[in-house]
């Protein structure tokens, strides 16, 4: 066991993933038209956990997953129909399993009572359902006999098998369990004796039985001690295209007498598709510690800086080697960019990693609150920086809880309001330019303007002027806005909306609300794609270099005098049938006392989610990727500045925060 313990962590992670798969699939399970493939996946997940836990000696997991597996097995063999209640029981079991798993992980005491209770509950449910479902068996038997007439012939040919009387009885046990040592329980469960037939049928259904049977025969004739169970087990495996390590290893233990040739020849047989998916799965994933990746990202950041330094030097080399130097530099630049993109993509994960925990949450909450809620998830494939995945999870959790608890009304109330009884909470993610936009939409009652204002006054929060809707909605993000009176079991557990906003802002994102009374509320979160690197336009204003994030830039123009209008001494630019407020970067951020000369200056038109305006600068220097360095690490937050970066010559340039520059317009006007 000691030798194995070094793999414990791998097992824990895999088991965790299997549990999550199970949960996701169970939640998605359609009771009316069950998808067999999904059910099979759930079964496989349970089976893998069982197999793995047995090897590693986590008996608590093995026992419970075994019972669970039996239930799932019956379900996939059409012996029992999964009802909502059964799904709930299964979901609760996954919870218990998660619990046990974390107990093992933290080397905490295992609560066997819970396990036994959970086991008993599963068994009882199973007994109850299968007991009343006995009629189902006969059609199955018939079907088998009728549909696979050749089976008997085939069997009859197999002289060897008849020589081993144990084959028939043993088959169903060993089929799944020989490696796991669960004969006793299994026998009880399977006294109904459906398994072997069902399995046979299934195997045939996949068209593998014949071939494998022959192979098995070969094997049997080769070995002095035939292993008919190996045949069946392989058949099942192949049928599902599933050769997992945990799956295979216990089986190997069990059938040591089996010649290696059987395994390899059997393995070589699967359909191209299952084989392909197997090899693909092996080739596409490798576990790497996060800090190794972070180190890579940092190093690439430094590489990008060095590369732009080289570019600068490259322009100064003597004529004789300038051409060679240039082509080498261009090559280097391309390689650097590709390395950078590749490294960044290593850190990217689909946002479904976060989203997948919410169906369960919504299901549980809606049951608890006696609401009917349908959670719709869109854009789960949108990729997002791993660091963001971890940090966005809590704010989203809170917002969804909020939508379910406060947003969606009770069914009766919804009917009154002429809405469908079932409320919809939609969670969507999409990439827009360099940003990820996540929205949480509910079709509930909407925010109550009067109540928010009243609450704000009561809490002594100063009201914004003018009191526009969006300004009122922002009030709920004020610290101390949520009150003890609001605390329910579901939301308001001391994590206020202010924490949500703070978390999102600390990620360089922002959150906006729009809400219509009676129609619902939409929370929109904008997040940067990555926290480390930014595509920017380098510009110069009052002898200083600034970076404007490319995402914000609409276009750059050199305005003519007629386009500049003045209102109360402030400049506006008339372009594209619109008046754009102008901000003089040299004056507001460059510390220059003089206004930029508009005759030579350039206006960069930028937009944020809230506003469009123009930035007056002296000249455009170029476009480049910059590594974002935190200004707050050694200094403090500066209005209008998102961070700093190191230029090719080693000097520091400030990155503009276009969003927060908007407030200069307000204070200016």
């Amino acid at each position, binding site marked *: 066991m000691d030798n194995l313990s070094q793999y414990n962590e791998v097992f824990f992670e895999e088991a965790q993933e299997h549990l999550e798969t199970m949960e996701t699939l169970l939640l998605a399970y359609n009771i009316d038209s069950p998808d067999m493939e999904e059910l099979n996946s759930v079964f496989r997940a349970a089976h893998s956990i069982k197999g793995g836990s047995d090897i590693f000696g986590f008996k608590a997991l093995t026992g419970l997953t075994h019972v669970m597996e039996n239930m799932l097995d019956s379900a996939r063999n059409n012996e029992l129909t999964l009802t909502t209640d059964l799904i709930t029981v299964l979901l609760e079991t996954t919870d218990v399993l998660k619990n046990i798993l974390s107990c093992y992980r933290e080397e905490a005491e295992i609560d066997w009572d819970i396990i036994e209770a959970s086991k008993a509950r599963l068994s009882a449910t199973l007994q109850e359902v299968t007991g009343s479902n006995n009629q189902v068996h006969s059609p199955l038997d018939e079907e088998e006999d009728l549909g696979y007439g050749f089976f008997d012939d085939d069997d009859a040919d197999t002289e060897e098998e008849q020589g081993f009387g144990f084959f028939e009885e043993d088959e169903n046990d060993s089929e799944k369990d020989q490696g796991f040592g669960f004969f006793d329980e299994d026998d009880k469960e399977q006294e109904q004796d459906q398994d072997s037939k069902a399995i046979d049928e299934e195997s045939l259904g996949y068209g593998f039985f014949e071939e494998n049977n022959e192979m098995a025969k070969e094997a049997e004739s080769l070995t002095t001690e035939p292993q008919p169970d190996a045949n069946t087990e392989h058949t099942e495996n192949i049928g599902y295209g599933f050769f997992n390590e945990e799956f295979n290893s216990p089986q190997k233990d069990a059938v040591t007498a089996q010649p290696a040739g059987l395994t390899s020849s059997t393995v070589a047989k699967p359909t191209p598709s299952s084989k392909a998916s197997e090899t693909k799965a092996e080739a596409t994933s490798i576990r790497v510690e996060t800090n190794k990746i972070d180190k890579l990202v940092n190093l690439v950041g430094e590489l990008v800086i060095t590369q732009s330094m080289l570019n600068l030097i490259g322009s100064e080399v003597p004529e004789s080697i300038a051409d060679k130097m240039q082509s080498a530099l261009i090559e280097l630049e391309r390689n650097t960019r590709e390395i950078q993109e590749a490294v960044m993509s290593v850190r990217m994960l689909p946002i479904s990693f976060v989203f997948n925990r919410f169906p369960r949450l919504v299901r549980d909450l809606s049951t608890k609150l006696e609401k009917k809620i349908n959670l719709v998830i869109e854009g789960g494939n949108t990729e997002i920086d791993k660091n963001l995945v971890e940090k966005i999870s809590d704010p989203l959790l809170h917002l969804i809880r909020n939508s379910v608890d406060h947003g969606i009304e009770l069914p009766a109330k919804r009917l009154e309001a002429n809405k469908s009884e079932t409320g919809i909470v939609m969670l969507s993610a999409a990439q827009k330019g360099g940003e990820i936009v996540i929205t949480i939409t509910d079709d509930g009652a909407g925010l109550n303007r009067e109540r928010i204002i009243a609450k704000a006054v009561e809490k002594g929060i100063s009201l914004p002027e003018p009191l526009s809707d969006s300004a009122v909605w922002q009030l709920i993000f004020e610290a101390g806005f949520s009150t003890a009176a609001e605390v329910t079991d579901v939301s308001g557990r001391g994590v206020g909306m202010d924490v949500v906003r703070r978390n999102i802002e600390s990620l360089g994102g922002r959150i906006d609300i729009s809400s219509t009374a009676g129609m619902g509320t939409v929370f929109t979160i904008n997040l940067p794609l990555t926290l480390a690197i930014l595509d920017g336009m380098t510009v110069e204003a009052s002898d200083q270099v600034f970076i404007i994030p490319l995402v914000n830039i609409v276009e750059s123009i050199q305005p003519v005098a007629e386009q500049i209008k003045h209102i109360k001494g402030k400049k506006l630019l008339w372009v594209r049938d619109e008046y754009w407020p102008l901000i003089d970067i040299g004056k507001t951020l460059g*510390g220059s006392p003089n206004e930029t000369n508009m005759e030579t200056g350039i206006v960069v038109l930028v937009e944020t989610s809230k506003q469009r305006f123009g930035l007056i600068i002296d000249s455009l220097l170029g476009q480049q990727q910059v590594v974002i360095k935190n200004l707050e*690490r050694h*200094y403090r937050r500066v209005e209008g*500045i998102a961070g*700093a970066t*190191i230029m090719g010559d080693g000097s520091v340039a400030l990155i503009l925060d276009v969003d927060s520059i908007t407030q200069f317009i307000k204070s200016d006007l």
Partner: protein
Amino acid sequence: MAILQQGNTSSMPAKEFLTFVLGDEAYALDIMTVKEIRGYEPATKIANAPSYIKGVINLRGDIVPIVDLRIKFNIGEATYNEWTIVIMLNVRDRVVGIVVDGVSDVMNLEAEDIKPAPEFGVAFDSRYLHGLAALEDQMVIIVDIEELISSDEIGVFESV
């Protein structure tokens, strides 16, 4: 930048101080806060920062603010030439550079060598001073640099 090791290191409770010059006055700070000493280089200005914050520089990948104490405390003249020195300080896990006219020495001081500072006559508020010490014939003002740099008065750190 000749830094001379002075005194014997065997005297137990003595602390080492780096002396530096602002205008005509000699100051000293706890040498344990010093990260490195380097020549002055132009810094990138920061929007709406007070005049004594010269801006930020790149210290091997870190963006570090530079404070000119001469401007802040109105001592001497804030000129920048090849002898202008920046002392990089490690204060409360952050790095801040201070511009001085020169560094002169490292001195060992025992607790009893430091005399309380008068309430007046010194550019710094007495809150930021450990006291005064005599070095040969000269008076050295011992600055509590950690207190000073992290104070709201300098405003380099976000006020909590």
